[in-house]
């Protein structure tokens, strides 16, 4: 450091001060670490591409996802303008793949949001209030945890009919349990911190403390868990679709495409292979991002 930096009012000192004040926040550090992680960056690029394709893809394909063309039944890849072939009704697979990708990603995001909202509210409340309330609330989570989850999702879809919006809700409503546990654990340690004590001393009501002070500080682990929840939900939805309980025709999701492809795989293997590869690549992208985020946000876990 030069001597002039010690003189009040000098430009060197001003610059130094500015640098000191700016510093590097935890999130800056995390972003830096995340961007150094090659797998995570690759995952983000792939996922970005997938998102773009699911949004813009339908505009690029000269077929609609539900146009039935009798002459194109089981058209092989490259035949009559079907880049990756057509299915048993002569519908263009690429168009259906883009549509299905959009549906799967959409379900993943919406259901993850549902699980996020319920899980964070539940966990933060239980953790912050503590005592009997905590015990009862977490006992509820434990009990639900030991239920055979997939059977209840199946029952829910049977009850509510095969409505795509309700599938979101059903899956999201079951996936919030782990989130609630994570959030509660974090809240328990956060509420011992001085700034919460200060907020309490300032007379804030518990609800305000939970949502304005605790929840924002939970962000790290929550973000990590959400990126791992989305692929889990995509799998769950596809699983339901596979059993014939998910998205209904002519709509498509990755799950219905794979299920359809599995039925016709001997006649038309491309119907199975392209959706499967898309699904696996998407899931891997999410997993790499999730792992990268965990390493970035919680470096002690490496």
């Amino acid at each position, binding site marked *: 450091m030069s001597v002039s930096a010690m003189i009040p009012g000098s430009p060197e000192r001003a610059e130094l001060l500015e640098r000191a004040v700016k510093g590097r926040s935890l999130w800056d550090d995390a972003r830096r670490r995340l961007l150094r992680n090659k797998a995570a960056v690759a995952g983000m690029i792939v996922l970005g591409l997938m998102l773009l394709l699911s949004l813009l893809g339908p505009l690029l394909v000269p077929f609609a996802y539900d146009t039935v063309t009798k002459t194109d039944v089981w058209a092989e890849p490259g035949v009559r303008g079907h880049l990756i072939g057509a299915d048993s009704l002569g519908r263009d697979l690429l168009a259906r793949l883009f549509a299905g990708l959009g549906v799967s990603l959409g379900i993943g995001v919406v259901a993850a949001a549902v699980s996020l909202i319920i899980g964070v509210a539940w966990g933060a409340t239980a953790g912050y209030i503590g005592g009997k309330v905590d015990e009862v609330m977490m006992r509820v989570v434990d009990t639900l945890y*030991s239920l055979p*989850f*997939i059977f209840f999702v199946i029952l829910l879809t*049977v*009850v509510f009919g095969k409505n795509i919006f309700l599938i979101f809700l059903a899956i999201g409503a079951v996936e919030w349990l782990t989130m609630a546990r994570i959030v509660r654990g974090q809240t328990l340690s956060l509420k011992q911190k001085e700034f919460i004590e200060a907020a309490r001393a300032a007379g804030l009501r518990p609800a305000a403390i939970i949502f304005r002070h605790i929840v924002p500080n939970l962000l790290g682990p929550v973000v990590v868990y959400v990126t791992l929840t989305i692929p889990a939900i995509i799998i769950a939805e596809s699983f339901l679709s596979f059993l014939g309980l998910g998205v209904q025709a002519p709509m498509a999701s990755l799950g219905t495409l794979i299920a359809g492809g*599995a039925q016709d795989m001997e006649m038309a293997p491309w119907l199975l292979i392209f959706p499967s590869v898309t699904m696996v690549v998407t899931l891997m992208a999410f997993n790499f991002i999730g792992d990268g985020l965990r390493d970035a946000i919680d470096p002690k876990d490496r």
Partner: protein
Amino acid sequence: MLRYLFRRLMVGIPTLFLVVTLAFFMMRAAPGSPFVNERQLTPEVQKVVEAKYGFDRPLYEQYGRYLADAVRGDFGPSLKYRDKSVLSILGENYKVSLWLGLSAILLASIVGVCLGVLAALRQNRSIDYATMGIAILGVCIPTFVTAPLLVLLFGSILGWLPIAGWGWTKVGALEFPSLKNMILPVTVLALPQIAIISRLVRAGMIEVLRSNYVRTARAKGLPEWLIVRKHALRAAILPLVSYLGPACAGLLTGSLVVEKIFNLPGLGKFFVISALQRDYTVVMGMVIFYAALILVLNLLADMIYAALDPRVRLS
């Protein structure tokens, strides 16, 4: 220990009660009825049939009666297969699922532990990277993708294995499933578990290998394989034991898909069909069966854990 066991079983009762209640009311809230899809019944006949099964009573009365019967172990008759009780349907179908599940968990444990140990001993070498790459793939490729792809490859293209079905072979007085039919479904079921188990074991092993008592064992001059087998492995497979409970739940889920794809006469296939047909009693019976199974398996996992880890005391 006995007291702990007793208390855990007591805690299981409210859980089971909740399962029964949720399943009961969800099933009844579903539109449709078990008696709709068949021959058009005249309204009078339909009323008689409903009265026979007590469906004309108010819902809470039906619920109370169901609970009372279930506690005595009577889960009622199937509503679709008139001459069969729920218990006899469970009894006929559980064997296939059991064989599948047990073989898969056994295969997954053996392969998973071997891979995990190997990867940990060769940390950051090519074997480690290869194993963990496989593990990531295993987690990311769901059963409903692996199953049809393997069937396509080994069943249709290579023709080595049957693409579907199930067979029993008699060995003396005992019945065993035929190996040929088992290979593909068991592999499909085991793959994701292998991935998870090998990751768990690798992480546990790496931690244990750095611990002081392993260093002591090395300092004593014990051969490496003995250290791994006698000292490290025992601690490293602890996470695996506590994972076995959730693993079985995962297997149940997976077996729904596998039984459908391979057309196996197991419980999972039956569950979906029964739910779609509104066969209330069968669905309820299966949900209760699965919930009880998961409870027992979790308890078992905890007890094995305590037996293996002297630091854990059950009380």
